[in-house]
């Protein structure tokens, strides 16, 4: 069990690190585009468009890691004031609810991607690619989130504390 926990944490951390590197690379690419345009090397419109797609990808990559670290914003006042036994029950109920929400997103994420692939929909902007590529991260992210909710449910721990915020 401990080996699973360790491997699981490492997987989520690796995905978050990929999100972090993606955001860093996007900042460098956008800056390079501005510099290139202003020194007369021409503009690369695909960079700005790529930065738009980087946002959902980075978000979906980092979201499971944030849940594992209990860093998604939530109101935990009830958990703090309730008796530990009741708080554990409430935490389990929200874990089950979170799991159900994720399951719906997994099912409909897969369906949306498959439907788009079947119709052969394409994104036709500066970068041309099959539209279903945009939807693939959704079921992957929510499947990971569902596993994390299930893990929390099984562990039965109450975790309070505010996450990062802008």
């Amino acid at each position, binding site marked *: 069990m401990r080996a699973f926990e360790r491997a699981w944490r490492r997987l989520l951390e690796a995905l978050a690190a990929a999100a972090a590197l993606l955001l860093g690379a996007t900042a460098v690419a956008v800056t390079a585009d501005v510099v290139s345009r202003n020194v007369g090397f021409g503009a690369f419109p695909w960079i700005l468009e790529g930065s738009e797609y980087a946002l*959902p990808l980075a978000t979906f990559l980092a979201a499971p890691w944030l849940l594992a670290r209990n860093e998604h914003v939530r109101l935990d006042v009830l958990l703090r004031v309730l008796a530990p036994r009741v708080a554990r029950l409430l935490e389990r109920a929200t874990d089950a609810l979170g799991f159900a929400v994720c399951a719906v997103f997994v099912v409909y994420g897969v369906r949306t991607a498959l439907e788009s692939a079947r119709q052969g929909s394409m994104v036709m902007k500066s970068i041309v690619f099959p539209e279903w590529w945009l939807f693939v991260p959704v079921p992957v992210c929510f499947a990971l989130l569902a596993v994390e909710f299930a893990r929390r449910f099984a562990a039965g721990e109450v975790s309070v504390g505010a996450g990062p915020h802008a």
Partner: protein
Amino acid sequence: MAWWLSALVLFGSLAMLMAAALPAAFAFYGINIAGAWIWLGGDAGLVQLVRNGVASIATFSLTPIPFFVLMGEVLFHTGVAMKAIDAIDRLIWRVPGRLSVVAVVAGTVFSAISGSTIATTALLGSLLLPDMLRRGYHPSMAMGPIMAIGGVDMLIPPSALTVLLGSLAGISISQLLIAGIVPGVLLSAMFVGHIVLRAWLDPGLAPTFEHEALPAWERWKPLLLYVAPLVAIFVVVIAAMSAGWATPTESAAIGAVATVLVAWAYRALTWSNLMQALMGTAGISAVILFIIVGATTFSQILAFSGATNGLVALIRDAGLAPPAVLAAMMLVLLVLGCFVDQVSMMLICLPFFMPLAAAYGFDPVWFGVLFLICMQLGLLTPPFGMLLFTMKSVAPKEIRMNQIFRAVTPYVIMGILMLVLVAAFPPLATWLPKLLIGR
């Protein structure tokens, strides 16, 4: 279903899910799933939910968010921010409540580079608070200014939440970012005035202590070395946006890369702290954007259920004077701010507030600044103000939550005063964007 019943069911269930400690993003998703099934056509509505989710955050207007956050994270993790604070500390002498004043001035400077309120509060809290308490500062003098200036970070660009507000509300992001400067700086000035007056009236609140005597050059050198380059980054980011040389996204990316280069020039950058900053950026950005995944569907459900039109028509037809409507909206925001986070506040209120603002002819930039001030107050108001908990997490263990509440109270009152001032004198918000961008 009558519109008011739909609204009651939607907001009632959202409140219940949030109170049950389900993370805000999942609470919105839960409501979206049920709402999409009922009002957006069942199965087709759920497919639309996924499409909307990706479309909500795959938008150019939101890309400055991670870049603005990265600026603050780099300065925080490389230790450059500490050097800047130390430089300001050397300059401020013979002022009653000196360290509290240093916190406000350093916080204002750091706000101008950091897009993250929590980074500002955590940095100042962990750096200055222990020193202040050790030197006998009253906890209210020590903690109040740090939390308050963390809130001001939201008004002074770069600010991730301002970008989000502009994007979701359809307000010009450049103008909104610039419009926050004057109210933000005025608030900082008010804070300094308050600290000096309190410490002067009751010196026991902030005991004076001997400060190492340094020659003038030794005092000014760190300012030139460590603060001037950061201020230069701020000026370049704002100038590039105002002059139309670069979009907010491009300015933000340039700012982020420039911040990394500055940290490298100070020899403060390592792979390890750069990665920490990037991970912090991914975390903070994803927390915000993951809630936004539910934004489009939530506003569609409010519209299709008739809740948006019903409530907007009810208020419009009530024949209320514009100031009364404005006051009511601000009151709703202030109350909401006591309980929910800033991103949720935007998702809940903007679908109603923007049509009302348009119906009453409110200037969108001015209205946006008022919205920002209310959200900033929401960071500071008990029981759930985010910065109160940030302070609790960095404060010594013996500091209790009610001491933190008491410490922040005068600053909340000053924030409300600023809200009234900007509401009464719109040029406080609109003058600078008009001057720099020209509308």
